[in-house]
């Protein structure tokens, strides 16, 4: 396979994630879309690393994987907090910055 | 007297008092559930897996036995009440017959009293064996270590049923007690058989204790389902439940019947009031019952086993107007029988018969004990109460 094919695939995945970010109103749905985008970026990192011939791409991807999982954990803690204070997890309900 | 609901000082029967906005899950625990020991329902309000409120519903096995007894003759009642506490039928028969004897003023010969005491103690061992098996199964599952204990306990319980079969010809619903005594005399060789069986079981009890003596059993029972002595007294709990809460009370010693006044019954108490204490009390009671039965079985005095002629016709009983309450100590606690004699059929059937089942009182502890525990503990607690629904619902 050529690198361009992987790049286009990654771009497609990323754009789908962006679509999700733009349309979703549910915090967990948003989080899932973010995961899709992060995944696309990871895929690109690995692809670049492979065609570049070093392991650095994989190392980066590993770091970002760990980071995204961390983000998911903190994000869900926030979601639970949001649910406790708003009794719902639609992000519109947290429009104002008051606790 | 008004019929309004008493204002109970009870935080659990009014859910609104517990964090009204909490997301509670209502779980119908039963009536069809592997661990409800029959058909019994507890509506549990769960916060996660923690019970915040539990409402027990009994009555799924109600058969109207008490009403039925008003239509049956005194001789016919015995086999009917046999089915109440189907784990310890000997006590049911004995309870109603003792009440009828008190009502009619019939003397029970000393040999019959010995037989009643012996079969009662052996029955207590059988009942506790069944309880231990099912309790272990509640804790350990139908596919697991619990079943091993269950199978072992049933193996020994079968031996006791063999003893009863030898004595009465029946394994389960004996109909051996009758007004004024017993129907079946001790057959030849029965005493030796009792010694052999009970000696055997005494050793096996050590085995049960050995297999249950591990950290998981302790972790599952200690501190779980604590019933304080005050709560136990308030709710009218009796038997091992009361004794496990530290109250030294046993009808065999405190209000002796049969020949218990001549015996030195060791009353087993324990402190803590948790499932582990109930387990310890019952295991010790098994040993004590084995001791009593073995001590008595060699010394049964000769004589008749029934004070009256066997009742063939209903009119043969002579019943005075009046009422009696007779209680005896079953494996589950105080089984009381309240009989009012008289009415149109005064010589045939009681005017009113009321049974006080210890299991129903035990179940009334659930709303107080369950909240704060998880679903797993609920099973352990329910099992440790040893309810028999046939008796609780009647």
């Amino acid at each position, binding site marked *: 396979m050529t690198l361009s094919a992987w790049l286009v695939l990654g771009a497609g995945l990323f754009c789908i994630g962006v679509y999700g970010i733009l349309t979703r109103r549910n915090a967990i749905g948003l989080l899932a879309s973010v995961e899709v985008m992060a995944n696309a970026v990871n895929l690109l990192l690995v692809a670049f690393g492979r065609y570049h011939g070093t392991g650095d791409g994989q190392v980066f991807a590993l770091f970002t994987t760990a980071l995204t999982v961390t983000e998911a954990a903190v994000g869900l803690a926030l979601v639970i907090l949001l649910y406790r204070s708003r009794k719902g997890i639609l992000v519109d309900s947290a429009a104002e910055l008051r606790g | 007297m008004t019929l309004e609901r008493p204002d109970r000082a009870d935080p659990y029967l009014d859910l609104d008092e517990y964090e009204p906005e909490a997301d509670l899950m209502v779980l119908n625990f039963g009536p069809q559930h592997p661990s409800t020991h029959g058909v019994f329902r507890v509506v549990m309000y769960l916060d996660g897996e923690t019970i915040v409120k539990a409402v027990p519903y009994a009555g799924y096995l109600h058969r109207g036995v008490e009403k039925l007894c008003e239509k049956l003759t005194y001789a016919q009642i015995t086999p009917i009440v046999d089915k109440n506490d189907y784990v310890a039928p000997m006590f049911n028969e004995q309870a109603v017959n003792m009440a009828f004897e008190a009502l009619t003023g019939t003397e029970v010969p000393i040999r019959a009293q010995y037989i009643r005491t012996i079969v009662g103690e052996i029955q207590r061992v059988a009942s506790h064996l069944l309880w231990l098996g099912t309790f272990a199964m509640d804790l*350990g*599952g139908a596919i*697991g270590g*619990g079943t*091993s204990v269950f199978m072992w306990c049933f193996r020994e319980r079968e031996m006791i049923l063999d003893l009863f079969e030898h004595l009465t010809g029946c394994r389960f619903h004996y109909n051996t007690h009758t007004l004024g005594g017993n129907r079946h005399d001790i057959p030849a060789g029965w005493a030796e058989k009792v010694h052999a069986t009970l000696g055997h079981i005494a050793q096996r009890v050590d085995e049960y204790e050995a297999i249950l003596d591990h950290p998981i059993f302790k*972790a*599952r029972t200690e501190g779980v389902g604590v019933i304080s002595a005050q709560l136990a007294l308030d709710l009218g709990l009796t038997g091992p439940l009361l004794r496990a809460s530290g109250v030294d009370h046993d009808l065999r010693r405190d209000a002796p019947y049969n020949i218990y006044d001549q015996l030195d019954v060791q009353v087993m108490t324990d402190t803590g009031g948790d499932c582990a204490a109930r387990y310890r009390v019952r295991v010790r009671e098994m040993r004590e019952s084995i001791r009593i039965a073995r001590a008595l079985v060699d010394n049964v005095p000769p004589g008749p086993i029934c004070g009256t002629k066997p009742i063939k016709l209903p009119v043969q009983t002579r019943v005075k107007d009046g009422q009696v309450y007779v209680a005896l100590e079953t494996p589950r606690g105080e089984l009381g029988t309240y009989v009012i004699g008289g009415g149109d059929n005064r010589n045939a059937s009681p005017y009113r018969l009321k049974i006080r089942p210890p299991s129903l009182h035990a179940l009334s502890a659930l709303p107080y004990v369950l909240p704060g525990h*998880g679903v797993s503990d609920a099973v352990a607690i329910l099992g440790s109460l040893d309810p028999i629904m046939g008796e609780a619902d009647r």
Partner: protein
Amino acid sequence: MNPWLHAVLYSLVLVTVLMTCTAYATWLERKVAGRMQSRLGPTRVGFAGLLQPIADALKLLQKEDIVPLAADRALFNLAPPLTVFFALATAAVIPFSPGLLASDLDIGALYVLALSGLMVFPVWIGSWASNNKYALLGGMRAVAQGISYEIPLLLSVTIVILMADTMSLSGIVQVQADEGWFIARPFGLGLATFALFFVAALAEGNRIPFDTPEAESELVAGPTTEYTGMKFGLFYMAEYLHSIIVAGLGAALFLGGWDGPIAPGLHWMVLKTLGLWMVMLWARWTFLRFRTDQMMTLCWRYLVPASLGLLMAAAVWVHAVHGVS
């Protein structure tokens, strides 16, 4: 031979053998449990009840296939085959004797861990899709337990990887054949790691004393409450498969796999797997069940710190013996 053809043929044989083993594992378990409980186990179908597994399968096939009206139909039907699939996929990298394995992955040990981490999903999917409260509670328990015990399991295997200096399972077995079994590593290091692995694997496989997700006496049948017939059978089969594979994995990681005198490697591997599986059986029919919170306490308060400590000890030991390579 073409590697693709080899993989396909080997997988077919492996699946057939494993399925038969699973069927007879149920028979063996019932026989052994019967002896432990002073009864006989199956005796009626065939000689010594040997045809019992087939009769059971036939019975399950005849049962009515019920899908609850309020269930999520697609997910409900997806869950049972998925459990069996994940359980079988794990078997691909287990080395039964030198060269006898579907695929000698470089990262075989990690592959097994990744799949065993996925095992909770079909269970959760089934429990969610059933739309039943008991099933839901069971599913939540399964997921919580799965991700918690994943950590000590991962760490214990990491210790083995550290000692073996390779992640390939056949490589790990080869190292043990050359240098001695890992369970016999000095200072009790190997034994402690093995104990850690065994406990964590029992919990991952939902075996007693850790079978809280199923907990018949509390949750009726946990995630499988609403399943009938062969769908239930598939869950059941996956559980047995998983336990056999975990035993095989333990044999390969700690007990030297195919290594042994006189007899061929395959015999030793089968013998060790069977032995380990019997220990699991023994535990199953002896112990009672933990409570969920007690299981979590055991994992996070004792097993995770212990595994971290062991990992450090193993690192020091490897460094002292081999030096920096």
